[in-house]
């Protein structure tokens, strides 16, 4: 057993203090310690994108970070975007365009798209396809996801 560490992590605007083993992945901290099960766990080696969250505003794989590394950082998860009955514009767009089927990849898609929309002009569908190339979806064939993101490109506050 390794030495444990005390961390203060801001998750979706709320500060959490916890004592963690260094090897605890950020995914497991979010899901098991905090009960935020919206962040999905797929491959656990950075390939599928299902666990994508925002770290200090930048999208990152939560399975490739340790909770201890989030000490002092601000983490945003899918739970920060909106709620049923009050979804944000990007979530509404996914709903309108049938951009999900089983929903497993959806949290990662939404968090990735949130960062993509802030950082890139996404002028073409090809740009959107490249942008989500690190997020695997096995249901939709991606067409509807691309359309959903396309529909919010250029809106002043697309994702908030």
């Amino acid at each position, binding site marked *: *057993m*390794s*030495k444990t*560490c005390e961390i203060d992590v801001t998750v979706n605007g709320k500060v959490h203090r916890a004592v963690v*083993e*260094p*090897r605890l*992945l950020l995914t*497991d901290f979010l899901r098991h310690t905090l009960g935020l099960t919206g962040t999905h766990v797929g491959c*656990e*080696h*950075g390939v599928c*994108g299902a666990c*994508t969250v925002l*770290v200090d505003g*930048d*999208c*990152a*794989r939560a*399975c*490739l*970070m*340790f909770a*201890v*590394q989030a*000490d002092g950082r601000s983490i945003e998860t899918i739970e920060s975007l909106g709620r049923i009955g009050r979804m944000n514009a990007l979530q509404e767009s996914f709903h309108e365009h049938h951009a999900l089927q089983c929903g497993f990849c959806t949290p990662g898609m939404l968090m*990735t798209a949130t*960062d*993509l929309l802030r*950082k890139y002009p996404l002028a073409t569908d090809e740009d959107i*396809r*490249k*942008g989500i*190339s*690190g*997020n695997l979806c096995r249901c939709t064939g991606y067409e509807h996801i691309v359309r959903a993101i396309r529909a919010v490109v250029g809106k002043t506050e697309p994702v908030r």
Partner: protein
Amino acid sequence: MKPPAFDYIAADSIAMAVKALAQAGDDAKIIAGGQSLVPMLNFRMLRPSVLVDINRIAGLDAIAETSEAIRVGALTRHYQLETSPLIARHLPVLSCAMTHVAHLAIRNRGTIGGSLAHADPAAELPMMALLLDAELHIASAAGERKVDARDFFLGALTVDLAAGEIITGVVLPKLPPRTGWGFEEVARRHGDFALAAVAATLTMSGSTIEQARIALTGVGPKALRAHEAEGLLIGQALEGGLIDRVIDAVRTTIEPETDLHASSDYRRHLAGVLAGRALAAAWRRAHESAA
């Protein structure tokens, strides 16, 4: 799929990091972006007893300009390199290469020091370090040293870096005036490791080529320069049958492996095609920059 237990040290300076590495002996690993290391930990391919985290070392992610070169701190994230105005101005071939590195979520975390130390045979940054004649700055408890990129990469996932050493920065000489560049990559999916990638620069003197650099990745155990092909270009214009002779020289220089993703023959063919495209782009840009 969960890593084995380890002790964790968050270093706040290079001095603290090298001290922690020295105390841990051979059994410590540095974690920078963690985008290659953490998968290996999750698979338990590695079982370090100590992780030394360098993410909190202030200033280690700085990109700075000198008269001749750009100095990139080891902790500089791929996304920073991709979007840096200094890199775009003085090393545009690197800005272009960075758009091919993995996916945004990886580029937000992954670092130049980590990518060079990991030395994946199909990664872009080792190839770019070779292309641009980079110099790596390395620190340990014993002091500091510098090593040229051409001496740093020893084989697949193998570099000239001892257990107690850490890369602190990379110095990249600016492209000379009248230099054109090209970058071409084919991967199964955008952001995947390259099946083959070629980067090239051509520097003009009068109407002919004074300096030519061609680097490749994904076509052998480590990234490499195609020196024989480069030599064919010196003092020449990129006309007539020259480009075909250069492509042939590139193809005979490399010994690609066959794996799940592509055969050796396919990779060799592809490397030649991409070299031709990269050189044509470099030739065109060299003339644009002269205009």
